[in-house]
Every structure is written in C-alpha cells, then in structure tokens.
C-alpha cells in the first residue's frame, strides 16, 4: 500500500522528495489543491471515504501518516 501511495504522490507532485519529507503540511509543501487531488485519488485507489473529520494536518504531514490514515479507514469498513 505504501508503494501505491508513493506512486500517487510522485505523479501528483514530481518535484517533491516524499520519502524524506516529514512536514508536508507544516512547511507548506502541499497546498489545498494538492490535498483535493490527493483525497480524490486515495479514495479511488483504496476504496475509502476520507471525510472532513479526517482532514487534519497530522494525517498528511508525511507518507507514513497517510498510510496509517488509509489503514484505519479500511479497518472501519
């Protein structure tokens, strides 16, 4: 799953080194348009429904956080 998320991210923003970044939101690397596209792609790829309560900076600051978010959402369903 981590690999798939990495693929989505690098296609969305090929200029960012996602492996090493831990503050994607705090440092303003990902902006609101990135988040909108990302949420759409993650929902499609993993058949989950990221809703407004899940949209918190801590869930998107690094790839590991996103993996955890998706895992939690998949468990719920």
């Amino acid at each position, binding site marked *: 799953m981590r690999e798939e998320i990495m693929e989505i991210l690098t296609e969305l923003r090929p200029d960012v080194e996602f492996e090493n970044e831990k503050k994607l939101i705090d440092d*303003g690397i990902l*902006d*609101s348009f990135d988040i909108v596209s990302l949420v759409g792609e993650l929902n499609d790829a993993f058949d989950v429904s990221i809703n*407004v309560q899940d949209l918190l900076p801590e869930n998107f600051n690094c790839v590991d956080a996103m993996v955890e978010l998706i895992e939690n959402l998949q468990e719920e369903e």
Partner: protein
Amino acid sequence: MQRNILEYLEESGANFPDKVVFADDRSSITYGELIRQARFLGACLLERKEAEGGCAPVAIFIDRSIASLTGFFGVVYSGDFYVPIDRQMPAARIELILHTLNPAVILGEEKDKRILAQMDMEDKLAVLDEILASGKDFSLNEEQEKALDRVRRTALDTDPLYAIFTSGSTGVPKGVLVSHRSVIDLIDNFKEEFAFSEDCIFGNQAPFDFDVSVKDIYSTIKNGATMYVIPKVMFSFPAKLITFMNEKRINTIIWAVSALRIIENLNAFTGELPKYLKTAMFSGEVMHNKVLNYWRRYLPDVQYVNLYGPTEITCNCTYYKVNRPFADEETLPIGIPFKNSGVFLLDGDKLVKEKHTAGEICVRGTSLALGYYNNEEKTAESFCQNPLNHVYPERIYRTGDIGKYNDEGELIFLSRKDDQIKHMGHRIELGEVEAAANSLDVLSAAVCIYDKAEGKILMFYQADAPCDKEVLKALGKKLPKYMFPNKLYYFEKLPMNKNNKIDRTYLRENYVTVRCDQ
C-alpha cells in the same frame, strides 16, 4: 469629493478608533493604531525620498500578516504607490518584476537581503520592523506632520495606488497600475450594491498580491468593518476553516472560485457549517453550478454573488446576484455592469447588441487601470481607442474574454480568446510557461497545452533523452509552483506540421481529454 483611499481609513478611524480593523493569526490592530503606525511609516519613507513629489513604486515583500497591510498604507501616506510581491516566487521572476519596476525602496524583512543580494538590490531594502521600532510610540514631529500634509494636498485621485503583476505571455510579468479613483469607484459601488456596513466581518482568503484582496481591504476600511486574514493552511483542512469562521463570526466572504470549489470537493459541510455567513461573493474563474448548488443546499439563506472582471479594470466590472435556481449544467451569468462602468461586446470593431451573439467583452470608464507599468508596448496592445468613438480620445480595455447576452439580457462568459488559462486559482499565460521551458538548457524545445477537462498543464518537450526531473527542477528556478506542467511528455523529436512549426493540433488531438460537455 474623495481623492485618496486614506480618507476611508481616517473617517473610519474617527468613528471607530478602538475597533479592530485587521487581524492575522498572531495579532490584531485597531483603526487608531493602524493610522498612527502608517503615518509614522509614511513620514520615515518620505524622509528617505530624494525629492518630494512624484508618485513612485515601492515594492513590498508580502505575507499573510498585518505588517504587510501597514506597509501598504505607509507607502500611500508617503505619496507613493505600493507593489506587493510574494517572496516565495522564484528569484528569477522577482528579478524580472523588480527590473521593470526599478523601485527606489523595497520594504521587507531582514531575511530578504539574501534574495535581493542575488540581483544587486540589497541596498534598496528597508526593513519594515526596524522602521516601526525606530520612533517613540509612532509620534511625529512638526516637520514630519507638515511633510505628510504637503503630500496629501498635492495628491490626485488619478495617481497610482498599487501595481499588481500578472502573468505575461512573452515571459515577462506585466504590472497592472491602478489609481485611487478606480478603487474609490469600485468600493463605493460594492457598499451600495451589497449593503456593506460596519457590521461586516470579512474573512480574507486572497493573498495580497491578488487584486481580490483589494475588495476585502478597502471595503473593510471604508465601512468601518473588521477583516480576518485566514491562514492559508486552513483551506486544506476545511473543518478548521469553518471552526475559525464561526469563532470570528465571519459574515462576508469575497473569495476565489477555487476556494469555494475546495469546500465542495472535500464535502466539507458534513460537519459544522459557517453559521454567521450572510454574503458569499466569488470571482476569478467560471463558477460551475454544481459547486454553487452544493453551497446553496447547505447554506440556502446566504446571498451569493458572481463577480467578473480582469485585473486591468480594477477587480470587477460586472456582478450577478444569484436570485433563482440553476441546474448543475446551466451556466451562471456574470450579470450586469457596475454603476459607472461601461461594459459592451465588440465583434472586431462593431458593437454586438443582439442576444445570443458572441463578442469580445470590452470595458470603458473610470475602472480602467492606468496601464501596464513601464511597458508601453503591452499597454498599447490592450488599452486602445474605443472603435465606436471617432470624435475624442476614449480608452477601452479589450478583455480577451468572449461573451454574449442571454434571454434575460444578462452577460454570459463563453470562453477565452487566446492562451490564457485559469489553473490552480491563478491566471496564467501559457506563453509564460513555454517561454520559461524554452529557455532551459536541458531541453531543446517545448510546447504547453492546457487540458481543460483534466485541469492539467501538459508539456511536450524535445531533448536528447527523457529528463522529467531535471526539467522540473530547472523550471523551479523560473516559475512559481502553480505554473508547473502537471504532465510531461518526452519526444526525441516533436511532431512538426507542414509549415515546419511544432504540430500543436496533432498534440491536442492525441493527448488532450475530450469530454462530451465541452
């Protein structure tokens, strides 16, 4: 008779000296405090000027802070006009702008010395915080008071208030220069049409180098209202945004269409709702009714207003107050002209009056910008003599937007005439992206096409070998992120047409998504 926007500030300052005018995520400032600080800053800047008189540009590195706003007003008090510059732009682009502007002073922070040193302009830097800290409680001596008075007495309403730089199709950004008169006209109209008052609590979304923010800032000071600067990150996390809006009781928003679209895309209204919101105005690109209907479903009592106009006519020339239901697929009108704005359709040099007949949207009147700063060529291209007027000099601005009148006589936006696009909330000349790409050593030729259905900038490039990462890295030095191509296609040799030019038609036909509703 009003000559200068400072009169708005001073009148509201007299009525509400202790009321908060602006607040950012760190602090707030009252009308009284803002006037004192801005006058002090103005007096200090005036002392630096080589000669009194003349209205020259002062560049300001801006962020989402009260300091930026204080900077603006300080510059106006000193008799000059301000030019907001986003310090996060690539240095190369900042240099192009500063080169056109040639400002005597650049207001900023200590850290800006580094960027300016790269372009040999560090001696023009004036550190805003330092200046503000240099006085005693911002009090002025008699000399300073007199100097400020002299400046005010000779200021004209046709003098520039600001210049905002926009994307240039040849690669050099253009500085749209706007006068006090145009802004006074706009803001008076806004108050009248939309019933603004001192009860307005604005939630500013637009960065201060976008002219959308002009509507927030000057509507606030004219009406004795309050404006909250919404932190950018909140637009990625709408639950926080809505909480913020409720905390501050924000009742009026004038946002980019893209900001309202984010709320809809993320289905943000399933949690809290912005319960104090009374007026939601939007502009910048086409508002699709699918997005508006989402807002209308959750917030049916809000007055929605579609605003239209390019930066060159001072924010907006037409408005449409949404007063009837629309199906998702229907087009939302851009409405009717503001009072004192002449908006009409031209087909070449002929006036278009019939309904459902396309023409280029043109504007005449006080709302027109003074021109593009220090760019005679581009100014002459877009601001020209009204072809319907053969008897005296009258300028019009040709927007490059194609429109028509609907059955109700309301104006409808149809399409763009050229290669200007709206992408990621920004107005972009594809030519600027292409110019930057073609200037790179790492490739030999590049062409950009916009895939509207996907909302992606496609770049087709020719080089010895595929080098997407190198291309993007090199572009990063020239273009802001929102201008980056979203998809790159490598070609050993780009397809050519019969005229030995790159075959854009072939590329468009084979790579751009076609949707039925286009």
